[in-house]
């Protein structure tokens, strides 16, 4: 599996995404610049990292959706290619229409950075074989997942809710939800074969014990296992 990390001028979680994919999961990993019209050749996995793509003074990801590289990412996703968007990457995927719904300002109106717990809520390439509770960090001001009732129904019925916020024991809802996301949604699947994942927590920032935990590494390992 070959990975490409998309870098916008305001991406700032690209270093840890590249480090995790290249040095920990040990995938050949390249960088795709936002002005590129094509992904690097033979890209299997596209990772859109966190950050503030073009400053995001407008809506997060609203400018990124029309960037040259996103047209290539769209073609890749529609072909069934693997895509993971983390934090700002998730926001960009929803703005680009590759995932439904929107990420709006946290209910408490503040940026929040801390560890949360999530539970896998559907089978899929990034969630197969995961433990029932993972500890992952969040770091966002706009992470409250919202969608209309029909979309939520489709996500729930289609097994497309990839992760929900929960407490350390796995109980979903209530105070465990850090941003007011509807249905406690932390991440969703999309694409023709659940090949696109968007999530607010940062698995790439918690993939080795030295930085506080390695639960995040399991998502990437699950994908590598599913793809082979």
């Amino acid at each position, binding site marked *: 599996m070959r990975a490409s990390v998309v870098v916008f*001028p*305001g991406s*700032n*979680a690209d*270093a*840890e995404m590249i*480090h*995790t994919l290249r040095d920990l999961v040990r995938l050949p990993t390249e960088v795709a610049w936002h002005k590129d019209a094509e992904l690097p050749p033979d890209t299997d996995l596209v990772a859109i990292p*966190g*950050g*503030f793509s*073009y*400053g*995001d*003074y407008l809506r997060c990801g609203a400018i990124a959706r029309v960037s040259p590289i996103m047209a290539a990412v769209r073609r890749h996703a529609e072909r069934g290619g693997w895509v993971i968007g983390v934090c700002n990457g998730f926001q960009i995927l929803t703005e680009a229409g590759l995932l439904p719904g929107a990420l709006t300002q946290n209910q408490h109106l*503040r*940026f*929040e*950075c*801390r*560890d949360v717990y999530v539970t896998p809520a559907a089978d899929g390439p990034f969630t197969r074989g995961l433990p029932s509770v993972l500890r992952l*960090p969040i*770091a966002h*001001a706009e992470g409250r997942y919202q969608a209309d009732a029909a979309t939520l129904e489709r996500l729930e019925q289609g097994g497309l809710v990839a992760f929900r916020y929960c407490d*350390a024991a796995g109980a979903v809802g209530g105070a465990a939800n850090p941003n007011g996301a509807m249905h406690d949604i932390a991440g969703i699947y999309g694409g023709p074969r659940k090949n696109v994942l968007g999530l607010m927590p*940062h698995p*790439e*920032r918690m993939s080795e014990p*030295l*930085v*506080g935990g390695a639960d995040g590494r399991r998502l990437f390992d699950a994908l590598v296992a599913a793809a082979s």
Partner: protein
Amino acid sequence: MPGPATLPGDPPMTPALLRAHKVNDDEYARLEASLGRPPSYTELGVFSVMWSEHCSYKSSRVHLGRLPTAGPRVIQGPGENAGVVDIGDGFAAIFKMESHNHPSYIEPYQGAATGVGGILRDVFTMGARPVASMDSLRFGRPDHPRTAALLRGVVAGVGGYGNCVGVPTVGGELQFDASYDGNILVNAFTCGVARTDRIFYGRASGIGNPILYVGAKTGRDGIHGATMASDEFSAGGPSQRPTVQVGDPFMEKLLIEACLEIFSEDLLAGVQDMGAAGLTSSSVEMASRSGSGLELDLDAIPRRAARLTPYEMLLSESQERMLLVCHQGKEDRVRAICDKWDLDAAVVGRVTDSGRWVVIATPGYDPLDDAQTPPRREDKVVVCDLPVDVLTDAAPKYDRPRGPDASLAARHAFDPRTIPVPGSWSEELVRMVGTPNLGSKRWVYRQYDSIVRGGTIARPGADAGIVRVPCEKDGHTVEKILAFAADCNGRMVELDPWGGAAKAVAEACRNLVISGAEPIGLTDCLNFGSPERPEIMEQFSQAIDGLAAACRALDVPIVSGNVSFYNETDGRAILPTPTIGAVGLVADAADVVSSFFRGAGDAVLLLGDARSGALSLGGSEYVMQKTGKAQGAPPKLDLDKERALQGLALELARAHVVRSMHDASDGGLAAALVECAVGADRPELVFGCDVALDADASDAASELFAEDPSRIVASCERALVERVKAMAAARGVPCAELGVTGGGRVVIRARGGVELVDVATERLRASRESALESIVGA
């Protein structure tokens, strides 16, 4: 030589104009004598900022020379944009702390945000990628009507800027005191890492080299920010809002990436960010450091406001702007890199050998006016023509009068034993750890991205923030682990400027060694009241000596810093606050030590003197809360004991024999024990403890809450207690076994098993974590 042109609209040189520029009569006379002619209006503006306290350090310079700034690791001490310290394998840590107090009080979000932006630029300007930030904040009393809005705005501003730029904010401090009611402190720290063979200096070298302006366009924001920072506020004064700058962190991010790319090729002779006093200060400083001259053509300045005058362009403090001195012939390559990052770059001048700072412009020319034809060389006039050394070295230096603080004797005489004993020490402790000064700062640091770039090993809330930094050189990567701490207890400094300042150094370094890091360098941010008052100058002078003594005792240099005077409102000064930012190097990731208990059944040890005298409550948070005053004689810092203690702590960390270490500081030993027990962010990592103090119950107040320096609470496996004791004995450090970790309660006993405190950990945790709710809500 004829003087510069008088421009249309230049006001005449009147006493009122001089006053508006805060240039006094002596200074004006000195200026005229140096020039041999009166300055033009534009030149007066330039002098007012260059000779301002903020830029010239005119009141502090005579004292700053007493600070130790050299050492085997020091590559660059004070005087450059930031200090540079060798961290081995061809890499250096580059860091500084700087104040942005006045702007943050006027407009808290933008003031704090641009404070972060400014310190980031100081660091990456030298060729370093920023790897960690901290912020040291002071606000007025929690129930002051403005405190909540100021706190919300400043924290959101620090986060809003740092989070976007993508530099983790890994630590800092936050204190409340009524002295900051009208003058908050926002001290921002950043550290970066660079290759030692690619460090860039703010020097305009190479005669004929072009000067490039890169980054945001120039507007009217921030004009006279440096002079504002050199003045005190008054309640009835006019709004100073127009002098506050507005930050654009995305632009800063572009500048960082573009500059680091430019630095990686051999394109530049020097570089300087435009900070306080903008284009003027940056260009003058570069010419001064290299002993060269400089010519600027204002017609070429990129601008976003119409009809800017030379005066405005030279004094604007628009953010996110850099001046690059490019090697001749390399301009196109620099421009190509700027294009990649969609940044403006314009040649705005050149280096000369004249020793003069010459500014030219075409009167009335405005590139934003489409109808205008491009300016012609023959239409340009000289608007400033000043010797560089007059702007810098000839700036006045004052050895201002010093005198004792007459209130100190009475305050020292206060006997803390006169404070009535509370009914329950348990309830007292629950209340104390829930106060804004002692409680958890979680509400603040959760608004900072402390983990961006994926290398944060210890997050805010710990004694030191710790970051792993991959250092790449020629395709080979080594990992460095850096630790950061910021400390100052202004109350202790006010009661004893020498001792309080020395304690700030000791505590910052102690927080590093107990985390497993060797202190390698310090930066200071010296926040004081008006230097024109003798008691303030006395505080300042003594504090400098205290800092210096502690640096010598602990063998760590101060490599960069900042002085902020005039922190007062209506004649009332802030607590003297010489904030110390400390940088440490962790030799091996396995040496990192937790600040919190790690499990049940470990031994709890106290390293350092076990007993506090009854009088040592002086200056403590306890006395403050009980009497509303900072009073009593503060406990003395013994630098020999501190040095031995810190040597022991680092040895224990490196021998991997302790499970946690945490220093007893604000709130004393009792607060420290609570922090060890319930300070971890995750509830499953809370461990109570049962400890016994070798003290009579009648001494409970000072035993629990006195803030004696040089004490560390450690925990270790019980099988290792004797080994730890032996290591302590070898260094002459007292080491007492207090008790054991575990259980759901914090129990503290006096001699004879008398129970002083017995509280459930959940209560202590809930109290600590709601500490800021009284200010900002749940």
